[in-house]
């Protein structure tokens, strides 16, 4: 794998257009991954900013799929590092479906699901958030949560079963 180590002089001539294309292609997913892990808008902003700074300096010369995996790993680690710095962590909650101060929900039929989801352990919420909120595959989630891809699949299936059962019991 070739690593593009860029000097300041090189940077003045680099292809900003290509970098902008990469940012536009991946930024939304990086934002979502950071937010699912941190549940905090400020940490999300800082982690994604750090990720793009790293990418700007030395984005490995990957093919497109490897580049996505690299960026996901970097943003996940940057987010976790921000969390380890002692900042308050607020794991992703589905605020709009909780019984908030306004007592209003956008989709009443999702209220029970939102409540059941919020009661899951934070790690489980992250797995489901990455899978169904961000749309990552089990292989992409694997390095972000420290489980094997098959482990992610098994855990996801169990969580879906659990949510289904809880909704049935409530119904």
């Amino acid at each position: 794998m070739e690593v593009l180590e860029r000097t300041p002089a090189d940077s003045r001539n680099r292809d900003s257009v290509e970098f902008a294309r990469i940012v536009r292609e991946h930024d939304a997913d990086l934002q979502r991954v950071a937010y699912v892990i941190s549940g905090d808008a400020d940490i999300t902003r800082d982690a994604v900013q750090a990720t793009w700074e790293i990418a700007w300096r030395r984005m490995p010369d990957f093919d497109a799929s490897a580049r996505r995996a690299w960026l996901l790993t970097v943003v996940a680690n940057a987010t976790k590092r921000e969390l380890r710095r002692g900042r308050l962590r607020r794991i992703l909650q589905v605020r709009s479906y909780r019984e908030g101060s306004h007592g209003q929900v956008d989709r009443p039929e999702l209220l029970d699901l939102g409540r059941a989801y919020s009661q899951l352990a934070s790690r489980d919420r992250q797995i489901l958030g990455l899978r169904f909120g961000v749309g990552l595959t089990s292989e992409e989630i694997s390095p972000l949560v420290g489980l094997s891809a098959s482990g992610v699949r098994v855990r996801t299936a169990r969580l879906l079963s659990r949510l289904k059962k809880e909704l049935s019991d409530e119904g």
Partner: protein
Amino acid sequence: MKADENSDIERQLRDLLHADLHRSVVATDVDALIAQLSRHDARKGHARTSVLAAVGATTVLAAVLTGVSLNLAHIGDHAGLPSPSESPASSFSPASPSTATPSPSVNPTPFQPTSWRLVHIDLPAEVAAHQVAGVSPDGRVVLVVELPALSSAHLLIAADLRNLLVPGHTEGAPISAQLSPDGGFVLLSELGLAWRYEVSSMAYTQLPNPPGMPGGQWMIQDSNHALVLTGSVASHEFGGITDTQVWRLDLETLAYSELGARHDGVGLYPVADGGAVILVDNSSQHDNTGWIFDRILPDGSDHLLYDYGANYPPPSGWAVALDGQSIAFTVGGGKTLLFDESSGDVHQLGDGGVLDFSPDSVLVRLLRQDGMVVAVDRSGAIVTSLSGPPSGWIGVE
């Protein structure tokens, strides 16, 4: 469960989560980002203005060590210093590095400091924006890491600047890097893997993980041992109660012994006697509101060192001394307090965020809001005042 039932709940989950994420994340302004990064590059391309602190007339010690000039200012009589303004500070100025320069032979020299000094370290332009992560006691070896995500680590040895890139390591991915107390090796870790980099031979050796464990949080304890906290880092980030273990690795034999175990360990700090301090987050939501520090002695026995969560809200910074008895933490308003187990006392050290203790646990390094870096003694008296980072602890024989 039938597949279509799963599909229903998957669809509902997507609806639920998409809406929340859509509301919660803000896309990066690409043009502004690139403009900012370009400006940063342009600044880095300029010759760096030296921030080497002026060495005053009171300098009493100067040593030349393999191309590294080390000037230690005499900073006695600092107790009760009336002004925190820049003192005739200690400074440390490695020669300009060149990656083309052959690496000098580096072997740790026997060096038994009797005290420690905080010195300014003038970094070369290539790593000027990096943070000093460690300095050998004799000042010959400086480890710097790249912020904000520790995406690279370099060793600065006289005129030699080495990029530490372990085999198979993805350049740019965050890593952890620590310099051994004697400056003889660097411990690098990433994603559950760890390597030992020998400064003298420049060889990387992958270290084994604790038995049956996928890795963990690595800390150098002394020049012959490392500590590993397993099952904590990811677990803490993902919440839930988990069992965590503290392992001690003999770096000569690569044999592990288990030092202790806790629920919900989230931080590990080595103690010079062979034990450790473990930070445990007892709060039910892992929101950093239930911190306790436990001391684990070398024989595995343990006791509560300090119940931080019972007394203070989450800190913005903290450091645990190698004596295993002292904890400094920065609370609201940017003030740093010191807990001392021997007296049971908590008192204010001064303004500024805590960075670390000196290796002998006598001094504490603080970063003040005005950018000054100060070393204070345990009473809070300023011993050294520097114009700002980077800085490091140098031993004095």
